């Protein structure tokens, strides 16, 4: 699974992208976020306010219960501020 981080999620995790292999029981967006939080203090900090995290799966906005799989591109970022 390819993970991408943007804006302050990138700043806090210190990563812009990485390849990960979550355990097989990580099947949804919410489960992925919970697994990521457990990877270290920088992830726990970046993801501590779930309301402030938006997730896109394969370049489309996703909800907590939406499925994620090994071949997906998953992006984590704050609410958008363009325009």
């Amino acid at each position: 699974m390819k993970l991408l981080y943007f804006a302050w999620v990138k700043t806090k995790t210190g990563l812009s992208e990485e390849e990960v292999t979550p355990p097989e029981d990580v099947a949804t967006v919410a489960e992925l976020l919970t697994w990521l939080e457990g990877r270290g203090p920088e992830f726990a900090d970046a993801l501590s306010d779930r309301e402030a995290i938006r997730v896109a799966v394969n370049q489309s906005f996703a909800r907590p219960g939406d499925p994620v799989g090994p071949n997906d591109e998953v992006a984590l970022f704050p609410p958008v501020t363009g325009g």
Partner: protein
Amino acid sequence: MIRVQEADFDVGAELAKLTDGNTAVGGLAVFVGLVRDMAGGSGISAMTLEHYPAMTEKMLAEIEAEAQARWPLEASLIIHRYGRLEPGDQIVLVAAASAHREAAFEACQFLMDWLKTKAPFWKLEETDQGAQWVDARSSDDAAAARWVKRDPDAAE
């Protein structure tokens, strides 16, 4: 048409191209967003717009297609810049052309409102207090929500 680019754009030239040869157009509504020099009481010397290229293109195309589906548009255009910009610089151009003004005005506002909440751009402002990521505004969510169609069968 949508374009995401680092370079500046020439509003006059873009609008001329958009309606060139199409005499069915009776009204063209345009919005140009510029970099302000103030935010929340802090002076801004510059800002950097970051984006998620693959998703930006996809979302802008979806937003434009939705406007085309809702209003009888002859032409539409979204240009959004990324990279480092300074106060007074142009950030975004949105234009909607139709036979009559009402569709053009409404579609132009819709495009901006939806872009503000759906296109994956983030602003990093350089202020006197250091660099700060801009927070999303609830007023932008409210502006976008005006355009959400109510499904009469949907449960509240």
